[in-house]
């Protein structure tokens, strides 16, 4: 590899200092942790801007940084739909309309809100699936990180010096990152996780911004990048009329409904991992502003995480043709660029055999997931390289920590206190919470090794959880805004939504796939132009089924009396008055500004 580069002492020193700070924050917070609610919910004392950056950072795990750059290289600027369409509107909605119920009901978790609003069975369904899902995604995050470190040989040198076998790099990466995350959460609870997420946010910006600057300078700025790529890769909307005119292989309706509405609102408005950050805010107004504050940097993140993928593609493309031949690249500069880099987007290599992975036709499969680290190794000299790699590690850890803090809260309050011991003292639950933290990290390590050994089972599990998640937003929307919704309606609506998702996936198939994990395991009734189109339609079917079934069953079952629903349902809750004086602190004004800016970005990159 032409860009493999030895790390120098300064790079290691930067990493060590960072991890020192991370654990130091945990130690400093330890003396403030006296009750279970201080440990698990930060005693609702976090200022709005801190909660906001943590809200963003908790989601900024491995999947985000690695995956979005990979999608940038695969699909181009259309990847920004996952931000501007698939995140911002939902973040504004949860802040303005849903936070009054989450925060105002004094629920300590999202499953707890379901208990207050509906009944035990709905709460338990959500709590159990959520707990399993957090463990799985935190395990996958750890596995991805260890695999990346191993594939790129980043830490091989110190292992060679210590005379340890190279295979230990993988194990040490997993164990060490698990211990650091465990350390700071065990000591300082949710507050520690939130504080570290804020630190991670600034570190990620500090590590990646210069990378984008150097990369853009290298390709000749935005205009140079545009000249180098097919037009479909530099426009977000213009090819959305037909699935065959854009790299995502979707059309505008399934994009807006599937991604922009069902999946996006389902995640940002109901996933306890992110909502927990807003629920830890120090006032109702701060809780409502939390997702809005997060939306501002979120809006700009495509420039930080998607652009590196596009730049890598622009510099590599002469060697590899575009995946679907969506337009002709300019002939200019071809020869020159071809010699610059040969491996910013490298073929996937099997870690065990050292062989290049090939597809059915014998072409090498490209490993888009290594785009960001390869760019770091390519552009950064020692010093900045240490900072960039630290930022990458920080993003992996923030994803893991977010999952663990959500897991321990749900396990302690919604599973342990609900089913195992109802009348313990607070000190007892505090101990349980710390135990659940250790359990969460241990299970994550287990899940990481499970993912390494049984990749296919992990894919199936992820699919199952996608089915579970797809209908969720229908339940919350009806629960919060239609007081007639009943517990039975919610529960059976959810179940039938999950079933509809599974059924739809089993009956359809993306083009060019064989029946199996990709779908069509019952029969192939319909073929979609891409896997993404199939996912969006699965979500749309699941949501609609859940929405209709919930309404029908609710009308057939006895409603709850109004006085039990006060503060839980829109019609029976006092409107929020914006008590802050400054106009920019009013959630509604803030939300409109955020939406306006997002619209502007969409127009610029139309």
């Amino acid at each position, binding site marked *: 590899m032409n860009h493999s*580069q030895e790390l120098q002492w*300064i790079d290691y*020193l*930067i990493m060590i*200092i*960072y991890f020192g*700070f991370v654990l*130091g*924050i945990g130690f*400093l*917070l330890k003396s*403030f942790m006296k009750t279970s609610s*201080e440990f698990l919910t*930060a*005693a609702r*004392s*976090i200022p709005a801007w*801190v909660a906001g950056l943590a809200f963003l950072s908790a989601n900024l795990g491995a999947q985000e940084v690695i995956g979005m750059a990979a999608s940038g290289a695969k699909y181009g600027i259309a990847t920004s739909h996952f931000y501007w369409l698939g995140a911002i509107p939902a973040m504004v909605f949860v802040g303005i309309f849903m936070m009054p119920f989450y925060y105002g009901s004094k629920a300590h978790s999202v499953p707890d809100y379901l208990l207050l609003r509906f009944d035990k069975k709905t709460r338990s369904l959500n709590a159990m699936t959520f707990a399993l899902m957090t463990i799985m995604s935190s395990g996958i995050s750890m596995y991805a990180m260890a695999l990346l470190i191993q594939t790129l040989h980043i830490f091989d040198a110190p292992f060679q010096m210590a005379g340890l076998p190279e295979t230990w790099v993988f194990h040490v990466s997993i164990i060490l990152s698990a211990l650091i995350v465990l350390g700071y959460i065990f000591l*300082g609870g949710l*507050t520690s996780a939130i*504080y570290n997420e*804020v*630190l991670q946010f*600034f570190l990620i910006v*500090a590590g990646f911004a*210069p990378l984008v600057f*150097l990369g853009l*300078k*290298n390709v000749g700025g935005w205009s140079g990048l545009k000249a180098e790529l097919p037009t479909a890769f530099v426009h977000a909307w213009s090819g959305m009329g037909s699935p065959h005119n854009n790299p995502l292989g979707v059309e505008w309706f399934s994009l807006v409904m599937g991604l922009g509405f069902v999946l996006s609102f389902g995640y940002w408005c109901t996933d306890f991992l992110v909502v927990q950050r807003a629920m830890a805010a120090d006032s109702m107004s701060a809780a409502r502003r939390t997702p809005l504050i997060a939306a501002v940097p979120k809006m700009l993140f495509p420039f930080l995480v998607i652009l590196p993928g596009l730049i890598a593609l622009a510099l590599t493309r002469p060697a590899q043709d575009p995946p679907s031949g969506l337009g002709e690249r300019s002939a200019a500069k071809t020869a020159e660029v071809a010699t610059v880099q040969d491996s910013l987007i490298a073929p996937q290599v099997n870690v065990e055999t050292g062989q290049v992975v090939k597809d059915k036709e014998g072409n090498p499969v490209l490993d888009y997931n290594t785009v960001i680290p390869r760019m770091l190794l*390519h*552009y*950064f*000299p*020692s*010093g*900045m390289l240490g*900072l960039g790699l630290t930022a990458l590690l920080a993003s992996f850890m923030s994803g893991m920590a977010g999952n663990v803090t959500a897991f321990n809260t749900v396990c302690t309050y919604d599973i342990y206190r609900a089913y195992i011991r109802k009348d313990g003292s607070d000190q007892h639950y505090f101990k349980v919470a710390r135990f659940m933290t250790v359990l969460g990290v241990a299970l994550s390590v287990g899940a990481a090794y499970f993912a390494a050994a049984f990749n296919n089972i992990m894919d199936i599990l992820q699919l199952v959880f996608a089915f579970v998640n797809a209908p969720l937003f229908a339940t919350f929307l009806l629960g919060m805004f239609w007081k007639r919704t009943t517990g039975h309606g919610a529960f059976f609506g959810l179940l039938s939504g999950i079933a509809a998702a599974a059924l739809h996936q089993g009956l359809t198939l993306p083009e060019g796939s064989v029946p199996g994990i990709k779908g069509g395991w019952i029969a192939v009734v319909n073929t979609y132009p891409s896997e993404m189109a199939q996912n969006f339609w699965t979500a749309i079917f699941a949501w609609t089924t859940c929405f209709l079934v919930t309404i029908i069953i609710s009308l057939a079952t006895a409603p709850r009396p109004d006085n039990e629903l006060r503060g839980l349902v829109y019609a029976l809750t006092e409107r929020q008055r914006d008590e802050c004086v400054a106009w920019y602190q009013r959630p509604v004004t803030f939300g409109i500004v955020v939406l306006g800016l997002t619209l502007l970005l969409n127009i610029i990159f139309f």
Partner: protein
Amino acid sequence: MGFDIRIPIGYLFTIFGAMLVLFAMVTAKADMYQRSLGININLWWGAVLLIFGLLMIFAARKSQAQTQQARKADRQQGQSPAKSANQ
């Protein structure tokens, strides 16, 4: 709760910034800056981080001083200090 998060952020970035600037001065002529297109990225970005870190510390100190002052003023007027600590 606890302490102002701006303080650890400020110190971390001040340390990182100072480290990068010093390292950049020592290695100014090194070949490795060909990677970063001939730009001494350690020097420039290190300086940016250093300034950011110092600003964070300054902002935290300033608001700390303000809270203390408000508390003092409250005590003189005989009000409960807890009230103004939330401001």
